[in-house]
């Protein structure tokens, strides 16, 4: 569910390309044709998408950790079953996305290894901890809400396999935000302590969620090419504004206060928010968020602990293949 800031370039990837083919390619994009895996594409398009889709996939997988943290402590069976289903969905979303990324020519194993080596990013939002049960409500309501804003336009992205994966993801995602909001409704109508817990979760998640949309437009130079290639259909600031405008009335319904006292509605009916602390964002991206080390360590441990399973499955498949070959030879 979670793309964010994945359109930030990590260097110059504008290669010199065959001009005629590039022009043909751009004409196909302009005509709203979908690009498919075996079609010719500029190397920079391939590289940008491999980075964006794989980072999106990593985000789904790492995103299982903060929520998985509360499965065994969910307050009721109903909540537990829903949270378990949601975390399973995130795993499925990660797998759809890895499959889409692989069609660009890099194997899932390589992509995962890059993430485990700390060379490929995932969404910075998952480097924040889920301290109380209310955080599970806030994550569903706000983090999934922000992710949906980002992902709906991606269903029309120019790269076919990515767009198709996003359609599936968006279809499944709609229950995630609702289950989060339901938790928030219950808490905010509960005891004083429960209400305080909901407010504290909103206080802690609000700003990191606004950062999920990525750097402000004037600082995001990579957006231009992504827009030209129709990977990105709305700018970071446009999506952020849409999210804020949708969320303010929801917070009001809950009787909770958005931790931005300077917020006001402008003449166009948009909610203007205060300046975002981009230094915090940069610090989290640089690996200095509250949970960066824990998240990577947990992923590495899961990968290492699963090594014998992968090995055994491979050995078993080989053994069966050999037996089949021997039986055939004996005929």
């Amino acid at each position, binding site marked *: 569910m979670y793309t964010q800031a994945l359109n930030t370039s990590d260097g110059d990837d504008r290669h010199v390309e065959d001009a005629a083919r590039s022009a043909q390619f751009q004409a196909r994009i302009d005509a709203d044709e979908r690009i498919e895996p075996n*079609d010719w594409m500029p190397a920079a398009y391939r590289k940008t998408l491999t980075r964006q889709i794989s980072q999106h996939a990593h985000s789904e997988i790492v995103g299982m950790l903060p929520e998985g943290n509360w499965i065994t402590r969910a307050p009721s069976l109903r909540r537990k079953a829903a949270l378990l289903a949601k975390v399973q969905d995130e795993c499925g979303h990660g797998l759809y996305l890895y499959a889409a990324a692989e069609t660009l020519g890099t194997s899932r194993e390589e992509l995962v290894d890059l993430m485990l080596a700390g060379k490929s990013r995932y969404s910075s939002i998952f480097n924040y901890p889920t301290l109380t049960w209310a955080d599970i409500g806030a994550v569903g309501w706000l983090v999934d809400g922000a992710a949906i804003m980002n992902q709906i336009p991606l269903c029309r992205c120019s790269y076919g396999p990515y767009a198709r994966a996003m359609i599936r993801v968006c279809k499944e995602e709609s229950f995630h935000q609702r289950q989060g909001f339901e938790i928030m409704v219950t808490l905010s109508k509960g005891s004083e302590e429960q209400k305080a817990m909901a407010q504290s979760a909103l206080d802690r998640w609000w700003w990191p969620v606004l950062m999920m949309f990525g750097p402000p437009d004037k600082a995001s130079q990579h957006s231009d090419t992504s827009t030209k290639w129709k990977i990105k259909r709305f700018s970071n600031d446009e999506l952020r504004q849409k999210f804020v405008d949708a969320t303010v009335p929801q917070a009001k319904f809950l009787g909770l206060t958005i931790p931005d006292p300077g917020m006001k509605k402008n003449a166009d009916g948009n909610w203007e928010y205060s300046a975002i602390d981009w230094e915090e964002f940069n610090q989290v991206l640089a690996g200095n968020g509250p949970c960066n080390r824990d998240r990577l360590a947990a992923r590495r441990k899961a990968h290492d602990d699963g090594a014998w399973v*992968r090995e055994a499955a491979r050995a078993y498949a080989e053994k069966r293949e050999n037996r089949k070959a021997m039986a055939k030879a004996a005929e």
Partner: protein
Amino acid sequence: MATPNTPLWEVFIRSRNGLAHKHVGSLHASDTTLALQAARDIYTRRGEGLSIWVVPSNAITASDPSEKGMVFEPAESKIYRHPTFYDVPDEVGHM
């Protein structure tokens, strides 16, 4: 150490409404049994279907996208293959 690759499979599912198996995506698994089990877990969490096929991705032969003009042109130039090509007098009604 680099993680060794696990074979890739394409997944096809036949939905409840009796339509043909339809491609839904791909997955990695070391053999057919695990591929079927993974396909159930990944692609049928919400009652999407009643039957699953898994096919090794490398067993699929695909048409060449650079030849699609030539391959599909014959179908585009034969408008008389469509019912709308033929005139039926209004008095006859629906046919």
